[in-house]
């Protein structure tokens, strides 16, 4: 496979092992030929196969992997050896080496709260008092006074009647959607919706319709065709693109079609809005949206998810959100830390201001160099590469240049829409932003992707 136009920089290939044991022997390919050949495939090719054996895809994927991995594909799960702060150490598994002092643009610890001393102290104190786990489902023995305190303070912050806590953001979306929607209902969501939204719809057995990203006209088309109960779900900040939904238009069209609305503010809580309540506050539409979802793992630096809304909504979900009912409640240490993190995030609006100063500065540095960042309007900045294999070689270059970024490629995003996802934090200093973006620009320039 040889590019006929824009040439791809050839990496230094490791000599790949031969294909793993399989029914037929295959000739061993040269390193470069193997990489070329196996670039035609990715995870999506191994999702489903016809036949009788549930393991039918294991061997084909293993064979592909035996070439693809040494050729540079897959740079995930690199173990961090430090807290997810603005500078990190990690172990680079492909070449089995430790890397130190990397500027970290990969974590979504947007306010730098996960390692704040007061947060850690609160977590330690709660762990000492209550132990490691909650030891029960929230509806049975697992609810602690700490959980009630966190839910109450969260509801007060979001200016809603009640909040419901979940062990993860994923389970919050899954539990809320499947707890509310039923077979015969229709859920309409943006095509770039998070997997937890899609999985919630699958579990609900409601009809699922996707509308074109941020396209209100297409949403209206889907709403017009939908029958029965309708729920429209959008995200505050889209996690792969960093852009916002046209919320006023979406709310208006939903109102006209009698659809309920839900907003996933995982990446926008404590980032957008005058008081940090998210994109709904940013647009002045908090009361027009029926279900507000958020996570504790982004700006608050912990883990967990939540839904806030009316008393009746939360009361209903307590009974029907199975992902909460049948999971252990949040660990006491995390809950104690989150109460402190929530308190700090509200008491120190300067953190949000610092975050936005950093976001603006990072955008400016990238914009000046002509970097393609798509339509990002937030702290999530895609650095578009648009080459589904080269991005992995570039990922190694990024690490070697001293910056940690996650490569995002198909099928997480569309084919040839691969990008690095850059997450800016309030904890970054100007020097770190400059050092990190300089490293990014060196790699992009070498690959002909910026001036």
């Amino acid at each position, binding site marked *: *496979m*040889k*590019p*006929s*136009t*824009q040439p791809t920089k050839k990496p230094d290939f490791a000599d790949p092992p031969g294909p793993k044991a*399989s*029914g*037929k*022997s*295959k000739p061993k390919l040269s390193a470069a030929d193997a990489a070329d050949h196996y670039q*035609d*495939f990715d995870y999506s*090719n191994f*999702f*489903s*196969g*016809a*036949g009788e054996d549930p393991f*039918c*895809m294991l*061997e*084909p994927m293993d*064979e*592909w992997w035996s070439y693809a991995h040494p050729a540079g594909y897959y740079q995930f799960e690199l173990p961090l050896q430090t807290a997810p702060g603005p500078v990190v150490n990690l172990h680079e598994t492909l070449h089995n080496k430790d890397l130190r002092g990397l500027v970290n643009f990969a974590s979504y610890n947007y306010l730098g709260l996960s390692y704040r001393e007061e947060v850690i102290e609160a977590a330690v104190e709660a762990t000492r008092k209550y132990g490691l786990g909650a030891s029960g489902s929230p509806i049975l023995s697992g609810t602690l006074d700490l959980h009630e305190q966190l839910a109450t303070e969260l509801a007060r912050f979001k200016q809603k009647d009640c909040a419901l806590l979940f062990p993860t953001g994923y389970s919050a979306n899954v539990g809320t959607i499947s707890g509310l929607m039923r077979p015969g209902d229709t859920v309409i969501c943006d*095509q770039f919706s998070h997997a937890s939204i*899609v*999985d919630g*719809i*699958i579990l609900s057995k409601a*009809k*699922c*319709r*996707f509308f*074109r990203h941020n396209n209100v006209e297409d949403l209206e*088309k889907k709403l017009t*065709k939908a029958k029965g109960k309708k729920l429209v779900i959008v995200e505050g900040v889209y996690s792969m693109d960093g852009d916002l939904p046209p919320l006023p238009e979406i709310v208006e069209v939903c109102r006209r079609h009698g659809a309920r609305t839900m907003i996933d503010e995982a990446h926008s809580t404590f980032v957008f809005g005058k008081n940090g309540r998210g994109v709904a506050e940013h647009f002045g539409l908090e009361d027009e949206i029926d279900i507000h979802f958020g996570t504790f793992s982004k700006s608050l630096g912990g883990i967990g998810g939540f839904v806030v809304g009316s008393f009746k909504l939360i009361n209903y979900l307590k009974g029907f959100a199975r992902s909460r009912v049948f999971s252990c409640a949040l660990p006491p240490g995390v809950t104690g830390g989150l109460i402190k993190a929530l308190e700090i995030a509200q008491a120190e609006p300067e953190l949000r201001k610092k975050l936005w100063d950093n976001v603006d500065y990072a955008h400016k540095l990238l914009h000046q160099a002509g970097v393609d960042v798509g339509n990002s309007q937030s702290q999530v900045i895609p650095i578009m590469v648009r080459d589904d294999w080269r991005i992995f070689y570039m990922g190694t270059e990024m690490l070697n240049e001293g910056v940690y970024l996650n490569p995002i490629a*198909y099928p997480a995003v*569309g*084919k*040839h*829409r691969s990008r690095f996802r850059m997450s800016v934090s309030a904890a970054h200093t100007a020097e770190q932003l400059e050092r990190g973006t300089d490293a990014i620009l060196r790699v992009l320039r070498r690959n002909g992707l910026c001036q």
Partner: protein
Amino acid sequence: MSVTRYDFSRAVSAFYEMPTELTRDLLPRDLQPLEAHHGSSIFAVTAFDFTESAVGPYQEIVLAIIVPPLIESGGDFPKSAFYPFLLGTSTPEARAHAIERWHLPHFMADIAVDFAESDGTVNVSVREGDKPILDYSVTEHQWEEVDHLYQCHMKDDAGQYKVDIHMRGQFCEHEEERGTLDIHDHPMCEKLDASEIAAFPFRELWMKQGHQLFEELETLS
């Protein structure tokens, strides 16, 4: 092993999302659609301009649903697998050949396929005489020389079949959502609910100056 070769100047394909429950009406009971997202399966339209074949030059439109490939241990892995539920060709000879040899279901009148190329876009227009069938467009990306393996599944009253198809030539593919689709009111499209099929392709594939190699037909049942 004998192979059957078809040379083409253009092969233009676009993948559109459509509700899974509607694809089930187009598939045999024992084939499942492959979903792009939950609830959304893939309707594929492919137009060929064949310049040389056992039945001479002709044009063809293939309407298909993407299905999971049938995997054999140690075998080559296909890029994707199709179940063509209806084809149209520009000559009776091409139809007779494809029905007899490959068990492919055909619209039984001559159709014409027009390829209009400009500024990195190819507009494909399919007609039966003056009656429009469908129009779609595909845009280009980075071109490269490829040898891709595809799998085609067929079923008729006599049985179920599979054939491996190698596609070789200049190729580009992307998911920039720049293409289009217009399905017209025509008997060839009567099984398609145009309002339920995305008006833009999520994936666009374009080949030039290549050839198809059909391996031997396998009878599955």
